[in-house]
């Protein structure tokens, strides 16, 4: 007999002082294991109602029901679970885009009404709502990549001194990989001002059906090359994937679809070779995004459309306000030439108000759409700002786009913290590099770094390129010597708004700096020029806050034949302009061709 075998049973006595692993009172208390998959918990404040849980559920146990307020980034729906079908597999928990959904370790619950087993976790209060035991999505494991596919770009050194487009675009492989991250919830569509079919065109990329993708784009947006590059992409700010990681690169995916479709095939793909012409005529003032969008949808509906453009080329701020390195001119032309190919006429170098009056247009055409935008620079009004070497960013950007030489100084100060300020900063930096071989430019804004209105990447890229961005200062005065600025005096700006949310900057006058610069650029917003609307017409129009003309939901003014949209009404950005133009085209058709 082996002595070891005799003694082995005695080792059990070693456990006598340890806590038992068995349950003491199993008849009354039987808690599930720490990671048991029991009844669900949902943090309804975190949940955005994307419905991905419903989508993945193999048992169709989940319904999305109206609970919360519907707003940007939140459908207001929350999952209701039918425990008659749930198999407790926890796929819904693991796929949840916000991590709001988890499972408790509670599995025993008795009620006499079978309907009780359908409820909305987190809303219909249950005993197991509190406590943290149960199943949660394990760390470091995702059904989808939470990192976006990086888009190649030119290095800061390559960017400097050149206006070549800096973002290189996605390859097929990259685009499909990025498209694969989309859960198709469609939360983005509501936030996009044009309500683009975003999940649908991303799906078209996944299916490698880029012609279908292009058709989806043109349903809502006739400027996809442009928007694919410079859209303010509000959609990405609400993307459900953004809760755990990077939002989908919706803008770059749009660009991918447009880039891959050659312009000569557009008319065939978009099935516009046999438009049915109408004998009604519409005039459009301005060839910016809203005017072009209205022109496109009116042309699709068969209207004879003529655009009147003040400058020598079409595109408005897209051409004359956005630098070429962000939006190359040939891509603007690709979008615009397609719209013109639908039979849209355009007359350049015509100024409505001086060359032709607005009233005359109203008489000659069945309807007029005006999308004249915001082109006037806004002055800081500080001492010295009336000097001739103090410029507006809008004027400079336009001149650069027109190929005019501008007198770039060796040291420059830019006032403004928005995207336009970044555009002019980075454009001037490129010109400085060309002319002087070095960059000496400083840009400031009232807002502190974290509140700057410019897109984050614009600020980062400007710094990469050698510009100094120094936010949180208020311009005090411009020092002038012998008719030429020598620099800008600034004081520290502590806050912008008062307790009631009114614009009321508070500055610390003791913290001051002087930044030398012989060229000062103001980029603090733009104003509209609607001098083409005569006094007589003004009396018939209604004006709202900030001197904006009041329009109805179809952008129709109280002068029935006059529609207005784009930056002068809403915005300012390209995608609102596009949405406004589309809606105005619908309004014009409803007026001229009412449904019988």
């Amino acid at each position: 007999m082996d002595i070891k075998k005799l003694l082995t049973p005695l080792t059990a006595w070693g456990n006598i002082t340890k806590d038992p692993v068995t349950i003491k009172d199993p008849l009354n208390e039987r808690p599930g294991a720490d990671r048991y998959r029991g009844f669900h918990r949902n943090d309804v404040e975190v949940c955005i109602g994307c419905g991905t849980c419903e989508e993945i559920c193999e048992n169709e146990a989940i319904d999305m029901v109206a609970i919360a307020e519907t707003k940007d980034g939140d459908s207001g729906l929350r999952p209701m679970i039918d425990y008659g079908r749930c198999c407790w597999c926890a796929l819904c928990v693991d796929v949840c885009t916000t991590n709001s959904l988890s499972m408790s370790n509670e599995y025993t619950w008795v009620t006499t009404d079978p309907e009780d087993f359908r409820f909305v976790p987190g809303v219909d209060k249950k005993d197991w709502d509190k406590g943290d035991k149960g199943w949660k999505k394990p760390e470091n494991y995702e059904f989808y990549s939470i990192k976006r596919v990086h888009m190649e770009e030119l290095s800061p050194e390559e960017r400097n001194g050149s206006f070549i487009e800096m973002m290189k675009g996605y390859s097929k492989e990259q685009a499909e990989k990025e498209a694969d991250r989309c859960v198709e919830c469609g939360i983005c569509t509501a936030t996009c001002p044009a309500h683009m079919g975003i999940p649908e065109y991303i799906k078209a990329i996944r299916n490698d059906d880029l012609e279908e993708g292009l058709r989806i784009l043109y349903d809502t947006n006739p400027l996809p090359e442009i928007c694919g590059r410079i859209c303010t992409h509000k959609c990405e700010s609400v993307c459900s994937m953004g809760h755990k990681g990077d939002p989908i690169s919706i803008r770059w995916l749009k660009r991918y679809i447009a880039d891959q479709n050659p312009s000569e095939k557009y008319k065939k793909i978009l099935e516009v070779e046999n438009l049915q012409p109408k004998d009604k005529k519409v005039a459009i003032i301005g060839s910016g995004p809203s005017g072009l969008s209205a022109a496109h949808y009116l042309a699709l509906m068969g209207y004879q459309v003529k655009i009147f453009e003040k400058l020598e080329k079409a595109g408005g701020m897209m051409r004359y306000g956005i630098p070429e390195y962000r939006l190359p001119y040939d891509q603007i032309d690709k979008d615009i030439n397609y719209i013109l190919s639908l039979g849209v006429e355009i007359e350049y170098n015509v100024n409505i108000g001086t060359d032709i009056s607005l009233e005359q247009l109203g008489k000659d055409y069945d309807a007029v759409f005006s999308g004249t935008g915001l082109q006037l620079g806004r002055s800081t009004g500080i001492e010295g700002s009336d000097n001739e070497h103090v410029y507006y960013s809008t004027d400079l950007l336009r001149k650069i786009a027109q190929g005019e030489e501008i007198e770039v100084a060796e040291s420059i100060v830019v006032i403004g913290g928005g995207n336009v300020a970044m555009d002019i900063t980075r454009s001037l930096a490129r010109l400085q590099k060309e002319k002087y071989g070095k960059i000496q430019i400083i840009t400031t804004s009232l807002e502190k770094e974290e509140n700057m209105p410019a897109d984050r990447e614009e600020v980062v890229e400007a710094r990469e390129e050698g510009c100094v961005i120094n936010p949180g200062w208020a311009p005090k005065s411009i020092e002038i010597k012998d008719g030429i600025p020598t620099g800008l005096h600034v004081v520290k700006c502590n806050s912008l708004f008062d307790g009631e949310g009114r614009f009321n900057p508070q500055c610390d006058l003791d913290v001051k700096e002087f930044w030398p610069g012989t060229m000062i650029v103001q980029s603090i917003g733009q104003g509209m020029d609607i001098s083409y609307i005569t006094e007589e017409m003004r009396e018939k129009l209604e004006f709202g806050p900030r001197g904006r003309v009041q329009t109805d939901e179809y952008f129709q003014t109280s002068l029935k034949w006059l529609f207005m949209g784009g930056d002068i009404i809403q915005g300012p950005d390209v995608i609102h302009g596009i949405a406004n133009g589309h809606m105005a085209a619908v309004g014009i058709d409803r007026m001229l061709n009412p449904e019988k």
Partner: protein
Amino acid sequence: MQDTIKNLTERFGASNMIEKKPGLIFITIEQSKAISAVTYLRDIEGYTVLTLLTAVDWIEDNVFQLTYLLNNPEQITEIGLRVMIDREKAEMESAHHLWPNVEVYQRELKEMYGINFPGSPRIDENFILEGWNDKPPYRRDFDTKEYAENNFFPRPGRKTNDPAEYMKQKMYPNNPSDYTNKKYNPNR
């Protein structure tokens, strides 16, 4: 354990040895030599306990992987023998004569994956899926959702909302593309 692996490799042509952690090794063996290898491990090498017998559906490669996880209680080591079998001809020699509990595992695999073990006791009887008349449900081409839709009716009164559609009704019911598509582009 190293000697055991060496013997498995030399005598039974085992390959693809993976050491998951000290004392846990997976190794792949040809179908025709698998039961001999299992018997050898049990009778000669001291792997007297069958911890489990399970399968994986590698549908892309058109094979099922059977795993015989064997335990040596003296050494406290485990060997997982992996056997790849043709998915189209899903059949494997039975091992019920080696351990009585193999019978239960084999009945489960027959029902869940459709892998047959001819000669295994009660192999054709229902295991847990009484009255099952569909594809074996653990096969990856079994569509759970479709099965649920076809076989289980929804509880009366159930109603769901598509988030995108619901947001549209709430936030922008008047969408210009609906108008332009409906009125001028009925094909879309």
